[in-house]
């Protein structure tokens, strides 16, 4: 197991370096400059760029960036928050996004399991079709549609929850964004749970338990859910990533001071350092999540562990 984890970590580092390299190349190809006030003369722009070391050759900048990164210096932002160190820029925003993301996943998994259980146990009956349709709708409708719906009805008309994120009520105002983001993981978890339950319910050992007289509730918890939960972990992994990307939309709609919309703005404004750092963070998170899921899965399901020797 340890060797496996080590190997994966090494792969992760290689991947991250590769990613940064590709990013550097792509940013080279992108036209424009971070300093685009049209009234600047070309000479003034060149002098500003020189001040930030943007006139140095490609490899120098790449190596410098990696070296600085290892020291914890991610550079400064060029035009989003000019001269602000990126670590400061992200320090305040990152926890907000992470918190809303985690809440979303937690909500999504819980609701998804509930829906999936209801659907699975009522296979081929009305409850199944309805809950399945709800789940699939959750995947079909774009998140900004949900954002607007929730903000308008729950926040504005019925005044149940605040629809603007506010640092004065961090928990309450994070609920609507989390709910919006939770729809997608909820849908995938629900669908997966449903099919797994249908599968498991058809198995012999369940029939055996029923004939032995085990009650419905005990049946669910002890036999069915345990088998299902292991698989749910694999479904959660891509959901976490979706939550990261979905946060773009949600943060714009609810005015959340997170890192969601920052990446797009950074790419469009040619703010190189912010782009590299954010892309790096996203990749690192993604790889970490995948690795954790794989390890957890291996720990829980002994069959996988054996097969890992492959």
């Amino acid at each position, binding site marked *: 197991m340890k060797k496996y984890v080590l190997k994966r970590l090494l792969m992760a580092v290689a991947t991250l370096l590769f990613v940064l390299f590709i990013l550097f190349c792509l940013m080279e190809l992108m036209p424009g400059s971070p300093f685009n006030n049209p009234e600047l003369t070309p000479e003034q722009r060149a002098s500003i760029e020189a001040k930030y070391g943007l006139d140095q050759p490609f490899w120098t900048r790449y190596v410098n960036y990696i070296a600085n990164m290892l020291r914890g210096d991610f550079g400064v932002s060029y035009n989003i928050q000019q*001269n602000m160190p990126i670590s400061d820029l992200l320090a305040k925003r990152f926890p907000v996004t992470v918190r809303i993301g985690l809440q979303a996943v937690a909500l999504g998994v819980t609701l998804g399991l509930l829906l999936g259980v209801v659907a699975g146990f009522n296979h081929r009956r009305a409850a199944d079709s309805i809950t399945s349709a709800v789940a699939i709708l959750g995947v079909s409708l774009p998140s900004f549609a949900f954002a607007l719906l929730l903000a308008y009805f729950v926040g504005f008309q019925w005044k149940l929850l605040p629809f603007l994120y*506010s640092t004065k009520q961090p928990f309450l105002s994070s609920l609507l964004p989390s709910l919006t983001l939770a729809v997608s993981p909820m849908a995938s978890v629900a669908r997966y749970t449903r099919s797994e339950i249908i599968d498991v319910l058809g198995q012999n050992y369940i029939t055996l338990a029923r004939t032995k007289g085990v009650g419905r509730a005990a049946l669910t918890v002890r036999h069915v859910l345990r088998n299902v939960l292991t698989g749910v972990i694999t479904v959660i992994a891509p959901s976490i990533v979706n939550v990261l990307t979905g946060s773009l939309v949600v943060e714009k709609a609810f005015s959340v001071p997170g890192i969601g919309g920052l990446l797009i703005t950074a790419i469009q*404004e040619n703010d190189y350092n912010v782009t590299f750092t954010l892309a790096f963070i996203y990749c690192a998170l993604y790889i970490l999540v995948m690795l954790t899921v794989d390890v957890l899965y291996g720990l829980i399901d002994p069959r996988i562990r054996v097969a890992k020797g492959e």
Partner: protein
Amino acid sequence: MSKWKSVVLVAAMLAALLLSPFAQAEGEKVVRLTQNVELDTLDISNTGDGYATSMMALLLDSLFRLDENNVPQPALCESYTVSDDGLTYTFTLRDSKWSNGEPVTAADFVYSWKRTCNPANGFENAFLFNYVPIKNLAEISAGEADPDTLGVTAVDDKTLVLELTTPCNWLLEFLCGCYFGPMNQEFVESCGDQYALSSDTLLTCGAFKLEGWTAGDLTWTITKNEDYWAADTVNVDAIEYQVIKDTQTGIMAYESGTADYVILSSDLVDMYRDNEAFYTAPTTYSWYIVPNFQVPELQNVNLRYAIGFAIDREALVNNILADGSLAKYDCNYSDVFFGSDGTEFNSVRPDFWKSDKEAAAAYWETAKEELGVDSLELDFTIEDTESAQNVAAFIQSEIETACPGLTINLKVMPKAQRLDDMENGNFELGLHRTGSSVPNVLAKLGQYTTGHNLNYAFCSFPEYDELYNATLVETDPEVVWNNCLDLEEMAQRNAVAIPVYRTADCLLIRPSLSGYFHHLVGVSWDFMNVDIAE
């Protein structure tokens, strides 16, 4: 029974939790403003954002302040004298303090101006100084002189002397902008690169104070500065700012009472057009179609006329934008330039451009003959913002229906890339926006001369250049005025830029607010004397 009691208790606690933040300190007057971008920096040498400058005007006093009639009123400058030849100004400052207790001195102004215009610092607002003929400024900008030789000196703590090379009758208006405010040298230098990135690294001396802000925050508050010399004219205790990026969220905030000032997009104008809170104010930002003269077909003037005449500008601003935008038919700014007798430049300027589809079709036929083609395809480079895309779709449709055979291909890209492409001549037709940081009609007309760095059309008309250069050295204001009218007429006739429309700000402002005003140039929104009726 106890189960119900605990339920009630929990419910009560929840209610208290939910409702408590909505309670406000009794008797406090707070105005809540919103904007749709964060503040990136409050360094006056670097900030170009309209919102940042509006807020800086509240935090930082300058020599003068534009009142609601656009007349400069003394602010930090208590009084001033001008020499007979109009080249030397002497400003006497009043007593004022920085937020750290130190007094504001003339030396602070000297330091601030030298810092901004120094090309070695690479500050974005350096270009603004190009419009004020301060002694030695041209040499400093070109890197030929030491910034210390700038023609501004602090004779003593309260006296500032400014030396010009030519008389400048817009000087006082220009000095109203916060870009020419003071900076405490010791403090600024001690902050280094971090200056103005948070409220801890910023000194203020204006009507309000700032605490607890870091660049990029989405909410912050400024509170009344009781030590301000005109504190009795400040009617509110605090102003809260909130960044709301989505217009509809902004409207919901307004309707639910959590915001008093929100931006309205042209899509939603219909909801509020007849509402008391609806406010529309034209800006100086104007959109033009810029033809790239390096494209052979576009050198044909009839083709350019065809494009320009085909667009029904009234339909655009009345039906599609409907947010107070105005149709534009000239190559200059409106409501900004005034003659010595008070006439506004655009009220007497020559009228060449019209919206006339039949004339457009005729010009197109002529162009086809002259170019020897039956059809033509042109690329139209635009930004990816929503308004630009709507306008471009409209323009494309208008041109294609009025001039059959002429096809317009839209090329959408982020703003930075569009500016880059246009600067490098890498486009055919471009949709370009210009704003007026320039207080001088001649300076704007200069942008159409050969080789000017803002001449994105890459056009060259020797006659035009000649007249322009002659006017630059002309001293008789009558002659200058008439020459400018001639230049404007030439610019229109040569179709160096095809005007489309002039944007307007469209807002919802709570009717209980008063005492604020809007300027076309400089600080766009002045909230210093805002008051809120109970």
